[in-house]
């Protein structure tokens, strides 16, 4: 087994989100017996930890890496450093200025636009929205927020502020509570990170405002999906990390195996995001459960 080539999928931090990718990778592993597929978490969601992890992986002899860079803009050089040694792919958030072979993932701006559409649908007569996010400076957050703003531009819907919580979920919930107090005029909450939506749902529920305050979310936390199913969350925009993991690994395996033709000319493979609302939540959830074997 030692001479099997190892392909690594390096994520940007610990999160359940990546369990889906892991499921995809597992499926890919079943189809790629000649490769050893691994998924790696950096011990902290920082560029320093991630860079060091990749350096160590290269040193320990992996054949190729697919990475969700913590901060692609500033990691250019470090990514190039890896890319000069082994084939490097990006996922989740692209780093177009690097020598990466290809990007496979979704477009956060597009996802943001979809969330904007949900907000417009939620507030047909216009209204004010408040956004909640972990790290507003992170690329994915910025692009999603931008997408929302682009879509609602010119309408009567307005995004008044973004409250950040440093990925501290207790603060995330408290931010929602305080917003309900401080801004009774805001009638639509958007949760940009996967845990923001469930915290919004709970805080709004505990304040007895479910239905009055519209909720738009991202990602597929069970509580989010439950809220969608219940009808108290308008909808959520999901990415397909399962496909990133599955398709990404197969792509890498082919490339490492010498088949360069799998890479499109514009080396960006977009796996579109989907809006999950009351109409399709059941089938989506069932599929998700079946893939990750979740409870």
């Amino acid at each position, binding site marked *: 087994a030692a001479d099997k080539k190892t392909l690594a999928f390096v994520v940007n931090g610990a999160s359940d989100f*990546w369990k889906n990718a892991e499921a995809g990778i597992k499926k890919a592993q079943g189809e790629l017996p000649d490769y050893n597929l691994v998924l790696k978490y950096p011990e*902290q969601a920082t560029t320093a930890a991630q860079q060091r992890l990749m350096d160590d992986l290269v040193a320990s002899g992996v054949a190729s890496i697919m990475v969700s860079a913590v901060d692609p803009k500033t990691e250019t050089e470090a990514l190039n450093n890896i890319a000069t040694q082994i084939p490097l792919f990006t996922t989740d958030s692209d780093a177009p200025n690097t020598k990466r072979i290809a990007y496979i993932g979704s477009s956060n701006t597009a996802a943001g636009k979809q969330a904007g559409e949900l907000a417009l649908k939620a507030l047909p007569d216009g209204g004010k929205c408040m956004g909640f996010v972990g790290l507003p400076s992170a690329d994915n957050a910025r692009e999603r927020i931008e997408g929302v703003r682009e879509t609602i531009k010119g309408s009567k819907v307005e995004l008044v502020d973004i409250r950040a919580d440093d990925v501290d979920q207790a603060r995330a919930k408290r931010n929602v509570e*305080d917003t309900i107090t*401080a801004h009774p005029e805001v009638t639509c909450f958007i949760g940009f990170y996967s845990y923001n939506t469930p915290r919004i749902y709970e805080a709004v529920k505990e304040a007895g405002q479910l239905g009055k305050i519209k909720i738009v979310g991202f990602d597929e936390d069970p509580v989010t*999906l*439950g809220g969608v199913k219940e009808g108290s969350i308008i909808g959520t925009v999901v990415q397909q990390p399962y496909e990133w993991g599955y398709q990404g690994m197969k792509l890498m395996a082919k490339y490492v195996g010498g088949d360069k033709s799998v890479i499109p000319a514009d080396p960006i493979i977009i796996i579109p995001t989907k809006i999950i609302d009351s109409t399709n939540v059941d089938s989506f959830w069932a599929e998700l459960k079946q893939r990750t074997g979740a409870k």
Partner: protein
Amino acid sequence: MLKKDLGLFILIVVVAAVVAFLNPRFLSPINLSNTANQVGLFGIVSIGEGFVIITGGIDLSVGSQFALLGVLFIDLLVIYQVHWAIALLMMVAGGMMLGTIHGFLVTRMRMQPFVVTLCGLLIYRGVARYITGDGNAGFAFGETYPWLDLLTKGKSFGVPHTFIAFAMVAILMGIVLHRTVFGRYLFAVGKNEEAARYSGINTRRVISAAYIICGALTGLASVFMTMYVNGVTPSVHGNFYELYAIAAAVLGGCSLRGGEGSVLGIVLGSILLQLLQNLVNLLGIPSSLNFAVMGGVILIGVLADQQLVRYRRWATARSAAARLEEAAPSAAVKQSA
């Protein structure tokens, strides 16, 4: 002691008044209730931290204990289907167990509390992350525990149960600290451990007990916190909470040199800290400044308190001198050199 607490109380009232003036919604029942809830969530563990600090120690591991115990709590409920009340008791027991280990290493192995609990900080979170495979532990949607929810998230007469639990813990611990022999021994051990031993106090047991109490309260608080955020992502859950706990205790008059502090002070310190966070959101201050505001207030608070103590000493000395002068306006001085 009392004067110190009074100063803090006045500070809280002033800050609250200013916030209420700038945004009258501050006084709305819902906001007060939310803030009380936060005070309860963070305050319980601050009292435990205060006990440890009074013995001259420190516990840097409470944040990581939140992560570890939170994960275990959810696993017990969801995977092992343990009754919630038993699970809750097990969390308290688990915290006590960790506290026992800390106490053992500090008193028997003579390691420094900072080192012991720094290792705890690193280890417990690591274990929690390992258990969840670096994912997160949560309840499935709709999976509810009506009694547990009522207990941890409910309200009575508009007062959140977290706050009631905090108040009960505070009263109980206040009595323990300020009225019982054990409390007196805590102060004695914190001030001068050797003298305490010479006085026949089992210092090891007293110090260990402080860590165990801190663990028990951390275990209790971890359940409230887990229920509040309805799940645990161990890589971030409770990060830096030890700093909140220490900050509340220090603001409340506990000296890191040991031997000083009061439960009332810690309660006020916890309230002030949460008030500050509420203020940031209510006044629309950028969230980035949240911590800066907290740091600034702690710095100024501690500084002002110390200057006040100094000034009072100086004033006492002066008035004593003045009294002497009056009493003996012209003492017979025989000079022979």
